[in-house]
């Protein structure tokens, strides 16, 4: 029983960072922008939030955990927004190729995260690893009361507020995309910017807003990882390939944020299941870790073969839109 509880908790813990990233990337891709900078932006969001908490705790003798949380969230949002802004400015305004800008942004963001994660403590005159125990405890505070219920409390109410935010944000995103005029306009921009432009939709504005909002959401995935999951420290490259898993999850979710919720649980479970399955050799453990990517590839193939319009990538995904090229 305890093993099952731990497994579910770990699967959710692994999944949430990916869920943030996937929701952000879905918003972005719906506008026709394939932002491959998401893994980098998640690093940037994570480290900036960590630095926000770190400097707050450094300059206050008696830090309050909720003020620390606020600082961390603000810094994370600003840094991720800057990441998204760089991407949109280069691809939409300066009309650069999206894949190239995205990959450059990932190089930059990953370097940014690992560099400051490794040396910020030293640069501030401290020794050893960066650590923000107080702020992190704010992120890790479970729901009071409810988390005391046996089993249900452990499985459902045991997490910090970012976990619930991730699910709520996905649901809101799904609602906006499917049910509101803004969402439909955004979908139109991603499917056919020419038609959207002709219908009087401001394509540039939609692309900017969707991509930057998406980046901020994804950035919180990084923040979740360093704060709630790692407890306020930084491991070099500790975030690993989760950013790319987030991009994989977008495909698995068929560009619907509501699907990403269960998808993230599945990916989270696949990420750690090798520890819980008895009798696996080391080699087969590594094979199990491969499964999220293999599943994604299979989904990608099946959807392209079935060719149902509602399950396809946005038609103009990855293509820049130049009004005068029509």
């Amino acid at each position, binding site marked *: 029983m305890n093993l099952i509880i731990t497994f579910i908790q770990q699967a959710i813990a692994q999944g949430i960072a990916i869920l943030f990233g996937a929701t952000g990337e879905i918003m972005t891709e719906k506008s026709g922008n*394939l932002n*491959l900078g998401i893994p980098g932006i998640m690093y940037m969001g994570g480290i900036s939030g960590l630095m926000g908490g770190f400097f707050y705790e450094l300059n206050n003798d008696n830090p309050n955990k909720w003020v620390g949380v606020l600082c961390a969230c603000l810094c994370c949002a600003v840094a991720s927004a800057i990441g998204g802004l*760089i991407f949109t400015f*280069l691809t939409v*305004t*300066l*009309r*650069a*190729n999206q*894949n*190239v*800008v995205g*990959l*450059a*942004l*990932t*190089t*930059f*963001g*990953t*370097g*940014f*995260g*690992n*560099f400051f994660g*490794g*040396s910020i403590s*030293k*640069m501030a005159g401290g020794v050893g690893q960066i650590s923000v125990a107080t702020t992190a405890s704010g992120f890790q505070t479970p729901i009071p009361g409810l988390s005391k219920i046996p089993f249900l409390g452990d499985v459902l109410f045991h997490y910090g507020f970012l976990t619930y935010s991730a699910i709520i944000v996905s649901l809101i995103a799904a609602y906006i995309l499917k049910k509101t005029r803004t969402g439909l306009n955004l979908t139109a921009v991603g499917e056919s910017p020419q038609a959207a432009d002709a219908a009087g939709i401001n394509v540039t504005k939609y692309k900017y807003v969707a991509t930057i909002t998406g980046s901020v959401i994804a950035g919180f995935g990084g923040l979740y990882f360093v704060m709630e999951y790692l407890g306020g420290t930084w491991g*070099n490259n500790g975030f690993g*390939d989760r950013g*790319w898993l987030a*991009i*994989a999850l977008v*495909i698995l979710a068929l560009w619907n944020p509501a699907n990403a919720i269960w998808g993230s649980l599945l990916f989270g479970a696949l990420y750690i299941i090798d520890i819980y399955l008895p009798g696996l*050799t*080391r*080699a087969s453990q*590594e*094979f199990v*870790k*491969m499964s999220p*990517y*293999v599943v*994604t*590839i299979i989904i*990608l*193939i099946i959807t*392209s*073969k079935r060719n149902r319009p509602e399950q396809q*990538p946005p038609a103009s*995904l*990855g293509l820049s839109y130049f009004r*005068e090229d029509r």
Partner: protein
Amino acid sequence: MKKKKVIHMVRRTGISTAKAWSIRIIAVLLALLVCAFVIVGITGANPIAVYGGIIDGAVGTSSRTWITIRECVFLLIVAAGLTPAFKMRFWNLGAEGQILMGGLATAAVMIYLGPMLQDWLLWIIIIVVSMLSGLVWGLLPAIFKAYFNTNESLFTLMMNYVAMQIIDVAIVFWENPKGSNSVGVINQVGKEGWFPSMFGQQYLFNVILTAITMILVFSYMRYSKHGYELRVVGESYNTARYAGINVKKVIIRTMCLSSAIAGLAGAMIVAGSSHTISVSTGGGRGFTAIIVAWMSQFNPYAMIIVSLFLVFMQRGSIQIATDYGLNNNASDIITGIILFFLIGCEFFVNYRLEVTTIDEEEAKA
């Protein structure tokens, strides 16, 4: 009468090479300026000393120069391999995985056949096998693109991580010493299968392989019928079909070529340089090469300049980081900043901004 100034962009009809390059040089200078601000902001050092340090780190000693050349050559061969695919507008983002698979095949040949065969035979086997295994990794996405129109950038991207896990599986079997979770240097004693040193230079063999590959690829692109066909497919599938080109065949053939070269790059890294295999064998080169290929607009000479410049700054900033006790990832930040400027400046090569004054009331009417 209200007057209003408006900026709008106009596509340049033709730009002289001199002007295009001066725009790029300005972008590079701006990038260096921003990098200087960042480095000085972090280290508090004198900017001139910092750039001295970068030059010292990249070409300060003969061995550092050779490392710079080695890294540059890796980027070049991958970028050359990507060129045919990109010209066909096939987004091969899977070079990283193709490098890894090539490296994996190389390591396997070195481990299993190393003690049995002559060196020259090993080299040939390594080159053939690494190209084949890179090819397989690129063939899968190509087939699905050709027949089902499966999104190739996402497919190839995912293949990278499958390849990384396969490397991890292989490490379990090959780890040396046991329990280290790494393969260690393969055939350290007898150097079986290691690419030869030429004129006392360990990396010269790689340089020659790359030069040959680049010449072959660019002549293929420019002078062969295949090269023409893949360019037409890149322009438009429909045009290609009307012209009687078998689009499916061209997609698959071109991707085979592209990924086989990435596989060869894997062999160069494993047999010609690191002599080991790990998930970081690719080292992000598969991604950086995409940027190199795109930014040089598939011009081989521009490719050499761009990759030399990037590697120069990378090696230099690693040196700076060591000098000031910071970590190596500083070089990624520097690379990122330079890339943003280089990517951005292409806009000003293709467009010019014009400020015109318009009459607001007239515009309303």
